[in-house]
């Protein structure tokens, strides 16, 4: 019999601590497979965030560094500049990490055209800390800090980071993808590959925003969460390439 699908060796055998059905595990696999397919395992350095993916360094079989909350792009900048163009440096960040406390770091990393790749997990909530509202939380979405649903008058509308960063000259490749179907999961992998290729070609800053789930803090089953991502998140956060130079 021939193998059709097998776990990549760029993921370690450590059991991931994520809740059942959490999208983080799917994205970890896609990043690991993209590195494997592009033969970048030995050149890769990942920067883990603060957030549920704080232990990402245990799961990737590549060199990893942990960063302070929101500061992964700054840490990645330093690593990339020291190791040079042969290295493949990526950050893995949640929406609290990237769009809230780390908003300045991500904007300026893109602005400087840092040749790093950012894997941005948008699950519309702060997962690790128990489900507080994020800048990406949808209008009307209930969280522990918006118990009656996000109020636009009071909190503004959800921030579209991909569109915003695409306006910056230093960004070279930005795409938004989702995990709700097999086709979209395959597209997500292609986008992640493209982002790594953009970095290795020295073209500039690259980011893939992945619409993901947080079943635990959304108060939904894993299956309901994927359906909610499809019906509620995708209409507000349109998928597709936002920037390609």
């Amino acid at each position: 019999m021939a193998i059709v699908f097998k776990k990549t060796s760029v993921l370690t055998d450590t059991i991931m601590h994520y809740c059942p059905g959490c999208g983080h595990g799917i994205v970890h696999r896609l990043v690991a497979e993209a590195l494997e397919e592009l033969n970048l395992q030995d050149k890769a350095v990942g920067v883990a965030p603060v957030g549920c993916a704080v232990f990402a360094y245990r799961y990737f079989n590549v060199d990893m560094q942990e960063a302070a909350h929101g500061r992964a792009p700054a840490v990645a900048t330093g690593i990339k500049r020291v190791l040079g163009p042969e290295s493949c440096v990526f950050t893995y960040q949640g929406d609290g990490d990237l769009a809230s406390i780390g908003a300045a770091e991500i904007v300026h990393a893109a602005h400087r055209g840092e040749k790093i790749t950012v894997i941005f997990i948008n699950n519309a909530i702060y997962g690790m800390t128990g489900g507080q509202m994020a800048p990406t939380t949808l209008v009307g979405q209930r969280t522990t800090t918006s118990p009656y649903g996000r109020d636009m008058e009071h909190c503004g509308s959800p921030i579209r980071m991909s569109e915003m960063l695409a306006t910056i000259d230093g960004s070279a490749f930005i795409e938004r993808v989702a995990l709700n179907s097999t086709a979209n999961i395959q597209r997500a992998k292609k986008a992640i590959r493209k982002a790594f290729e953009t970095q290795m070609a020295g073209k500039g800053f690259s980011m893939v925003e992945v619409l993901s789930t947080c079943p635990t803090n959304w108060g939904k089953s894993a299956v309901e969460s994927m359906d909610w991502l499809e019906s509620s998140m995708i209409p507000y956060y349109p998928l597709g390439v936002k920037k390609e130079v």
Partner: protein
Amino acid sequence: MAMVTINEERCKGCGLCVRICPKKIMQLSETKLNSKGYHPAEVTDMEACMACAACARTCPDVVIQVEK
């Protein structure tokens, strides 16, 4: 002939593979529990499986292997 192997001990019973299987031949076991207390996924009709690996690609814990 297709063969889907699920590492039951590491399955978290999330049901995403059940949701995505185009042949609707996956279910969470009604009789088995793993040591973490999850009902692991199982294939009900291996004959009908087309080895598309959709289940494996949606599994967040990467516990499914597919052969053909």
